[in-house]
């Protein structure tokens, strides 16, 4: 996917709220999905992954949901904290092309 640069989608939440970040992927052949968190000046940090034979996976304070029918992925963050403020990217693994394709990114802003 291509980011729209300065028009990066932004989600603003209050500390303690639950956050839901959505992502659409385009290739029905994708069979592995990852969420990354990128803080300013740093590289993307692995959060959680899910394979296409699952529709839900939980981690610590995070849950990823996969809907293959509509090619949609979401990341849920429980009890969002100011330290969760970052840009979040979904990525899907393109079987046959052997590369990870990144989505546009969503900026999460958490206010105290």
């Amino acid at each position, binding site marked *: 996917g291509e980011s729209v640069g300065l028009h990066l989608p932004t989600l603003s939440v209050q500390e303690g709220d639950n956050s839901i970040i959505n992502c659409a992927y385009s290739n029905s052949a994708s069979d592995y999905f990852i969420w990354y968190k990128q803080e300013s000046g740093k590289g993307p940090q692995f959060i959680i992954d899910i394979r296409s034979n699952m529709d839900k996976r939980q981690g610590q304070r995070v849950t990823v949901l996969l809907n293959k029918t509509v090619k949609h992925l979401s990341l849920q963050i429980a009890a969002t904290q100011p330290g969760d403020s970052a840009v979040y990217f979904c990525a899907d693994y393109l079987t046959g*092309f052997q590369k990870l394709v990144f989505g546009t990114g969503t900026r999460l802003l958490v206010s105290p």
Partner: protein
Amino acid sequence: EAGVTQSPTHLIKTRGQQATLRCSPISGHTSVYWYQQALGLGLQFLLWYDEGEERNRGNFPPRFSGRQFPNYSSELNVNALELEDSALYLCASSLAAGQGKPLHFGNGTRLTVT
């Protein structure tokens, strides 16, 4: 365990020059990936190396090249630099290539072309 390390952190070059960026993967990882992230934009796949061989490349001109050494470290070379090459270049590594193995990223090299 040390993560993916990249050097230099910042690099300033002038148009037409060549740039060399270096990456050391996590110990035990054999696959190395390079991505370009222009300011405020998403990550664009550049190159993938595994076991010393180039396995795939993204939609970039041939002046973007690289290699992987026997110790699995890698370097990215960009020849005939253009202003639009200014970006954060991210290296990632993973266990043997394939589905189900997450990429782990370094903090990147910020290349500025003037």
